[in-house]
């Protein structure tokens, strides 16, 4: 049976990540970085890698990892979401999942040891059931094509590129790889467009194994993103509760007004459910078969909208203050809204659920006519 709790190791991991983020990534620093146009915090990323070993968490010991698992990765993501921390962890986890599925042993060891950054070269909006035809393979092999809106790439990092006929590794530093920054809605998670013009590549897998590896990676992304969303939502709830407790209007704390209380109670209920859903998704990632896909689809169908609502409530209940650039609420709103698109929007995941749990849509538009004749 699925284990939806946090064990003591996981709580200890949470504690060290939270302490590190509190010390080195307060929101003031995150916001300042957004204004510099250098959103990723390389120093912070280095600390997480060196002090917590985040890149090796989900890598088995035989490949040089910590052999922990996705439940632990999820806890780290909760904390990163809670801090809107500008580090490329999620992308690294996703790409590492692809490597794990296609036996990239030597690469895995480098990645687990954080000797190389790695990212999957697909748009951040890509759902697990997507098809890949943006990049084509030429002789060499070399890759040609354009992938837009990729998250979590690093200048000298490795790009794993899905194509119609397999999965390829490309060095982002190659001259035939041109990376163009995008003005992203979530400035704490920069996106790039990538052009491959006959970029030399190394084939990692082809055919079914390649497709399986990419699907597994994107499924892990969808499942684990729910924990980041949970962290975002939790920050929004906590911050709003703290604010309405101290903010007075009409001679009373704003938090004593019943409509405010009930809205926050409803949000707490949603968070309670989102936590169970996100834990479930992380827990099931170890499964093979459809359970992992189902739990991931549920996670994105449920947790994405909860995070968005939490951020919207946060802005609203902070009044004008929550709408200012100087208050961090907008960072969470932008993060939440972006993650609601990442790895596929909620409606797309509902459609995936419809297939997975056998709740098919109407066959044809005419097929529904009968009910209205009263027969």
């Amino acid at each position: 049976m699925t284990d939806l709790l946090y064990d003591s190791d996981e709580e200890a991991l949470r504690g060290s990540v939270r302490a590190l983020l509190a010390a080195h990534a307060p929101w003031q620093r995150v916001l300042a970085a957004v204004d510099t146009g250098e959103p990723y915090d390389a120093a912070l990323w280095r600390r997480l890698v060196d002090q917590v070993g985040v890149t090796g968490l989900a890598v088995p010991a035989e490949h040089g990892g910590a052999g922990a698992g996705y439940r632990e990765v999820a806890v780290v993501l909760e904390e990163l979401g809670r801090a809107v921390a500008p580090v490329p962890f999620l992308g690294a986890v996703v790409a590492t999942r692809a490597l794990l599925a296609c036996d990239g042993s030597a690469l895995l060891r480098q990645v687990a040891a954080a000797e190389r950054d790695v990212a999957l070269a697909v748009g951040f909006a890509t759902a697990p059931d997507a098809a890949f035809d943006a990049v084509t393979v030429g002789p060499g092999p070399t890759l040609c094509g354009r992938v837009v809106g990729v998250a979590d790439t690093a200048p000298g990092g490795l790009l794993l590129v899905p194509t119609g006929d397999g999965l390829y590794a490309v060095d982002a530093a190659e001259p035939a790889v041109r990376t163009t920054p995008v003005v992203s809605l979530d400035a704490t998670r920069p996106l790039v467009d990538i052009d491959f013009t006959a970029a030399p590549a190394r084939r990692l897998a082809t055919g079914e194994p390649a497709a399986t590896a990419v699907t597994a990676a994107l499924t892990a992304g969808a499942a684990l993103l729910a924990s980041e969303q949970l962290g975002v939502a939790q920050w929004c709830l906590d911050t709003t509760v703290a604010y309405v407790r101290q903010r007075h209007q009409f001679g009373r704390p704003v938090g004593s007004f019943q409509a405010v209380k009930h809205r926050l109670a409803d949000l707490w209920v949603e968070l309670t459910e989102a936590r169970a859903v996100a834990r479930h998704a992380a827990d099931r990632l170890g499964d093979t078969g459809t359970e992992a896909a189902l739990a991931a689809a549920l996670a994105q169908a449920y947790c994405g909208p909860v995070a968005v609502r939490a951020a919207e409530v946060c802005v609203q209940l902070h009044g004008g203050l929550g709408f200012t650039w100087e208050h961090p609420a907008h960072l969470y709103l932008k993060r939440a809204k972006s993650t609601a698109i990442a790895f596929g929007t909620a409606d797309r995941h509902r459609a995936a659920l419809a297939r997975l749990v056998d709740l098919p849509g109407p066959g044809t538009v005419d097929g529904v006519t009968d009910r209205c004749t009263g027969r």
Partner: protein
Amino acid sequence: MSDHTADGLRELVATFLRTHDPRGDRTGFLRARFDAGLAWVHFPPGRGGLGAPAHLQAVVDDAFAEAGAPDNRPRRNSIGLGMAAPTLLRHASEAQCRRWLRPLWTGEEVWCQLFSEPEAGSDLASVRTRAVPDGADWVVDGQKVWTSLAHLARWAILLARTDPDAPKHHGLTYFVCDMAAPGVRVRPLRQATGEAEFNEVFLTGVRIPDSHRVGQVGHGWAVARTTLMNERVAIGGRPLPREGGMVGVLARLWRDRPDLRTGGLHEEVLHAWVRAEAARLAALRLRQLVAAGQPGPEGSAVKLSFAELSQRISGLEVELRGAEGLRHDDWTMRRPAEPDLLGRTATYRYLRARGNSIEGGTSEILRTIIAERVLGLPAEPRVDR
């Protein structure tokens, strides 16, 4: 203590079954099971339990069920088992526990609850039913409402005002009332579904011996809070499997009847499925927290979501059925012991579900409780103390 492991308890049940025939006399078997401490294992020894952790109850129940043993028909005595018993355990005297707990647990005596009043509503502490001392008795006059099982019950837990001059939370006392006593009149209360699950209970000069008082005079609100707390805890039943509740009815209908499907309703069915599965996982997580000895406030979330989902899903089912959704099965007045949520028409489910956000604490009250006790938001200015 080795009994307090799953294996220890399984062994105890096996031993018990060697000397008690599960196919024999039902009442005798249940009484013996109570006396062996295998009724509710987290109750203390001598009161039907072993002082074991509550989550091990499932182990015992499973072992008895496997052996084909009779159960105590828990749904027929939900108030007694779920609310009266924990209250008695905490607040009643030794003699009272001896008198009441065993026949309560075996199902020989059904219990009901006389708290709600027409004027009190969500503001339970404002009960007006009076209890006046008269020799060794109390004489009770008043009217109660929303009493399920009153027509079947032998005993009632009763909240009455014994000091009309004290502040409203301080003038109450908690009693056990004999439903067969003279002056107790039970009248069915018909509801929107056409049936009468509930009753109005009129109390006219009802004499209750002081020995049936639970807790001190004037401490009734504290005792009643134990009862209400237990009402709000999501107990009973096993964890639901996926599609285990009302959403399963909807999902099966969708699968069985392609003729009913439209694109718009497809989205609503999927939304409902997602919300129901999220609520189910949250309830499962609550169980895991309780089992791990970390009970949290998630029970309130479970009850709120259950009410909202049962209403939304049943409403959606009526619409999905379209022309069939315009048809009901029967409006004649019935007297069910419990609602038949899965057996009747979608229209019945829809109407009955409207009560889910009212009974056992309205959704509004629950939200306020969550806001104040879980989130720590300040209370509203009070004008009634």
